[in-house]
């Protein structure tokens, strides 16, 4: 059958892509969990959250039936607290730090409780923030992803009118386009963006791409400040023979298609190789399997010790039936009639630790061949180097350089999120947006 779309029944698609983190069934279930929280002081969960959500406080608020207060506590620190409750790798953040781990007990289900409060806020359209009186200032934000939306929300609350320029047809950035659908649905992402902008004072202009439809110079003419949150976008190339064969795709594009075209429209092979073992690789591998691929093999250069994804994510892939080929690096993609047919891999070994303690994978000289008809590249993404160069932004290998005040080399232009750090979690981008907003407020002498 090789690569084909529409492999499954509507029911099967529905089942395969249903929410893997179901919410609490009811108030009682949430209360049982909320009451387990010890209400730690200077809590490890807060310190382990990039946005420093006051977790014990919001859990206590759920326990006292002050769910509105709980939602406010969450959104005050993280306006995408709803989406983050579904996509955050909590096992290495808040839940990983929960003191119950030290008692060898199940940590508090913080994400599930956070979802309980934020779902209610979105369903009820609770307006938990009011804008301060207008300052007369205007700020442009480029990119309606987590960093841009977070920045815009803080600025609007402070009485600034914000216009967001977004190159896609929908907001949310990677939350909307780059994360497995069973973690967060497209409908939820849209509702979350609407909820954030329902504050007022935030206008999103879609299909507006920096360098194509707008320029930094032009925006600076109209606005008092500009915030860049354009993320990273280009899939890292493998730089091996056969990369242009039909059947070779990249994880970002693959996931984007699943999110934007619908499950039946996305073609997938019988035997799929996924290159890389980050969160995006997991999302690509599991979804390839859920779209109907018979075999999915993840190819990773190092060992489980070094893998960038969490154990929970790896377990997810394994439970979906994906295989992992450790200590393997793609060497050549072979084809027949222009179509992928085989993946030739080097067998790797880890070198002795270097000065920083890092062990590099080096080829052993042995190789093996996998029979595959599709290769999904998930070896990371690269920043928009050409674009930032063209806009005369100082950068390092495409990552925009900022100072401690989130300011770029161009006065009045600020930046944050993946386009600065090269690609981290959604929750990191939300914090970057807050930091950027604080810097802009200071720049505009508002705070």
């Amino acid at each position, binding site marked *: 059958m090789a690569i084909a779309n529409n492999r499954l029944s509507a029911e099967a698609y529905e089942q395969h892509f249903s929410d893997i983190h179901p919410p609490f069934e009811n108030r009682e279930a949430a209360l049982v969990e909320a009451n387990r929280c010890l209400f730690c*002081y*200077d809590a490890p969960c807060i310190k382990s959250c990039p946005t420093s959500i006051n977790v014990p406080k919001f859990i206590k608020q759920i326990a006292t039936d002050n769910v509105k207060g709980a939602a406010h506590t969450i959104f005050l620190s993280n306006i995408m607290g709803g989406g983050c409750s579904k996509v955050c790798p909590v096992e290495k953040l808040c839940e990983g730090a929960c003191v119950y781990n030290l008692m060898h007990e199940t940590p508090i289900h913080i994400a599930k409780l956070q979802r309980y409060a934020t779902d209610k806020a979105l369903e009820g359209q609770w307006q938990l923030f009011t804008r301060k009186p207008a300052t007369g200032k205007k700020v442009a934000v480029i990119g309606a992803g987590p960093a841009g939306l977070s920045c815009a929300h803080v600025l609007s609350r402070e009485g600034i009118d914000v216009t967001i320029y977004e190159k896609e047809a929908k907001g949310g950035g990677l939350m909307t386009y780059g994360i497995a659908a069973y973690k967060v649905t497209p409908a939820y992402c849209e509702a979350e963006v609407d909820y954030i902008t329902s504050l007022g004072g935030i206008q999103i202009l879609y299909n507006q791409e920096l360098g194509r439809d707008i320029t930094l110079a032009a925006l600076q003419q109209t606005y008092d400040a500009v915030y860049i949150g354009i993320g990273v976008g280009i899939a890292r190339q493998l730089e091996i023979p056969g990369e242009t064969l039909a059947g070779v795709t990249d994880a970002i594009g693959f996931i984007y298609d699943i999110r934007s075209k619908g499950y039946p429209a996305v073609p997938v092979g019988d035997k799929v190789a996924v290159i890389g073992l980050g969160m995006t690789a997991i999302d690509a591998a599991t979804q390839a399997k859920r779209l109907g691929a018979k075999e999915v093999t993840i190819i990773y250069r190092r060992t489980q010790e070094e893998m960038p994804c969490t154990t929970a994510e790896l377990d997810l892939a394994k439970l979906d039936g994906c295989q992992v080929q450790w200590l393997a690096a793609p060497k050549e993609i072979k084809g027949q009639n222009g179509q992928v047919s085989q993946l030739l891999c080097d067998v790797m070994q880890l070198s002795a630790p270097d000065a920083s303690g890092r062990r590099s994978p080096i080829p052993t000289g042995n190789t093996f061949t996998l029979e595959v008809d599709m290769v999904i590249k998930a070896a990371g993404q690269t920043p928009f180097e050409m674009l930032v160069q063209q806009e005369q932004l100082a950068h390092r290998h495409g990552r925009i350089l900022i100072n401690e005040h989130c300011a770029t080399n161009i006065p009045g232009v600020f930046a944050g999120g993946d386009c600065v750090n090269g690609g981290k979690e959604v929750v990191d981008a939300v914090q970057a947006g807050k930091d950027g907003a604080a810097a802009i407020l200071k720049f505009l002498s508002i705070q």
Partner: protein
Amino acid sequence: MADLTTNFLGIRSPNPFWLASAPPTDKLLNVQRALEAGWGGVVWKTLGAQIKNVSSRYSAVDYNNQRVMGFNNIELISDRPLELNLREIRECLRLFPDRAMIVSLMADNDRASWHEMIAKVEDTGAHGIELNFGCPHGMNERGMGSAVGQDPEIARMVVEWVMEKATIPVITKLTPNVHSVVPTGKAVVQAGTNALSLINTIQSVTGIDLDTLIPNPNVAGHSAFGGYCGPAVKPIALKMLTTISQDPVTSRVPVSGIGGISTWKDAAEFMLLGATSVQVCTAVMKYGFRIIEDLCEGLSNWMDEKGFATIYDFIGKSVPAITKWEALDINYHIIANINQDKCVHCGLCYIACEDTSHQSIALSYGKPYNTYTVKTEECVGCNLCKLVCPVEDCITMEEHRKGDEYLNWTEYQKRGLPLNDH
């Protein structure tokens, strides 16, 4: 295997666990189920002139998602015909001759009514009578229940009437709705009661529905003060029991302990403070009669471990350990110690001490885990950190006496020893 057999003024029961006078003991059907489950005896729900009840009748206080930490009722004495109750009591005695059958009474406030009621109860063959001088809702508005128990002279008078007539043991049940249970306790002992039981329920408002703004239990938009009981009242009951056990007059008679007893541990505590038998209600109203199994097994296992062959080996054993504050040893000094291997870094000890106690715990910042250590020179040994710590035996209080000899406050003053300088 410890012997749980109880002999209370000649009233024998296979264990010290009786059901208190309350809804669970208001008819044969319930009582039969209880005795089949293994309860040692029952105090039949209060008989008197037949009354009418309202709906609703109960409300509760929940705590941290645990149901019924405290329980409240506005139910009155038995609302069934007196003759029916008497017939069922007789039947129950026939079915379970080895169990204690005590009948609670609340007659109208005249000698004849009490005499008539006592005669009827004794005619059933019941083993004892309990005088309800405690009900703090409804009946007290009619001059009965706690209205009697709150006035030692009225209580004395009624007990004198009762003792003129009664030929079986009489237990007087005391109300806690007084500044001290001792005056009424003394009066009724002097009037001849054979035993005491305590506590009855405490007048309360358990809460208000924050939607309707009507306090509960809601009876057509209104509520009334109810009688509070359940685990929440246990410490108050234990204190009142202690005062009865320590008074030279009231300590002459046996006591049946009541007030929030839910587990064998609670029962052991009541007995250590002087109760010969214990009465249970709220716990069975929450879980049913089956809890008797663990009450008996737990008490028996504990007695075996402690080497107590019978309940009489430990009844009252802790009474002398409660003294006046004035007699406490000021030279005794303890200091908290945090076991760093057990600490989970929750910070609860720190914030409790820092905000509300003696600023005796040091915080050393860490990400994500802070380290907490005791400033031994500042620690006053108050126990607060140990009480809030969620890990068993993580915080221990270690003894560092200020002096070798016993030294109480009176002696301390006499010697002119220094007070704190901060």
